[in-house]
């Protein structure tokens, strides 16, 4: 038995290695449990927030309003910026055209963000790393 534990006859390497492995496992185990606890505290809240006694049709209605308002708002802002820029700089109609297109892109981005398909502001890098 002792020989199995200490292959070099010193009796130290075997148990020593075992300890390191245990320690590492313990560490991982602890971190896993912490993460689990953290997720557990978050999940019920989120479920509660989404349920809130609403039926499917009502949440669909709210979702539709959310997505359409995001899209319309971005286009309206794009048009607004372009129009004001044109008036100030006299670049009509190029400001309107460019910012309408930018507003359209931003609208798509807003909708994707509202639907949870694209990362939030300033978190683009992390999200893309995860996907890679």
């Amino acid at each position, binding site marked *: 038995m002792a020989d199995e534990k200490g292959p070099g006859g010193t009796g130290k390497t075997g148990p020593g290695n075992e300890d390191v492995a245990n320690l590492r496992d313990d560490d991982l185990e602890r971190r896993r449990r912490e993460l689990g606890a953290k997720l557990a505290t978050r999940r019920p809240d989120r479920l509660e927030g989404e349920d809130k006694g609403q039926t499917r049709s009502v949440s669909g209605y709210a979702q539709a*309003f959310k997505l359409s308002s995001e899209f319309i708002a971005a286009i309206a802002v794009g048009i607004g910026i372009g129009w004001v820029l044109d008036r100030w700089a006299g670049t009509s109609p190029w400001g309107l055209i460019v910012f309408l297109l*930018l507003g359209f892109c931003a609208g798509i981005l807003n909708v994707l963000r509202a639907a949870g398909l694209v990362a939030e502001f300033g978190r683009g890098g992390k999200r893309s790393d995860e996907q890679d």
Partner: protein
Amino acid sequence: MAAADKVDPIHQFHINPIVPIHVGGYDLSFTNSSLFMVVVVVLTGGFLYFSTAGRALVPSRLQSISEMSYEFVASMLRDAAGTHGMKFFPFVFSLFMFVMVANLIGLFPYFFTVTSHIIVTFALAMLVIGTVVIYGFAKHGFGFLKLFVPSGVPVALLPLVVAIEVVSFLSRPVSLSIRLFANMLAGHITLKVFAGFVVSLGAMGAVGMAGAVLPLAMVVMLTALELLVAALQAYVFAVLTCMYLADALHPSH
């Protein structure tokens, strides 16, 4: 048909001056909209004050309503913006209570819905975004602009991406205000139109009376739906406020 002509679903949103005030060419009249804003603020403040005045250890019904609304907004803000975000609690709580009470009061017949006017919701949304921008720049300086620069984007694409992000950021107050205003406007118009069907069908004699039962049932259901929408939109407004404030607190994440 004469009754049907009288039903004007837009009429309820008309603003009437109650006390005309004109200062330097500006119309600062005290209108029915202002009156209901005052009513909302007085009602909310009075309710919160008097319901918590007892300070009972075991809360009464009214006190527990106040405490639950406090807890609700506090946990919402803490989840979104962390404990640092709690310095904005008075702001978010006032916004939430104002919007919710304004929405709910608007459901009473003959009452004016303050939040059904886009200028009101836009002013509230600009207040939120103004807070975010000013606090963000005050706390992080130009580091706040990192919000518009997603990491991991090729340099060649950066100007385009930043422009899109800026437009997207600027669209936030607009979408915030449009959502609240459109929900309220659409809901109240739908209610009015269906209630108008009841009146005009009811004027058509016995057959019409029998037919009027259907829109009447619809109005009852819609009222329940509107009650839900009123609370839900206040919740959505407050949640988005919390998310935007979180961006101001931690722009780079």
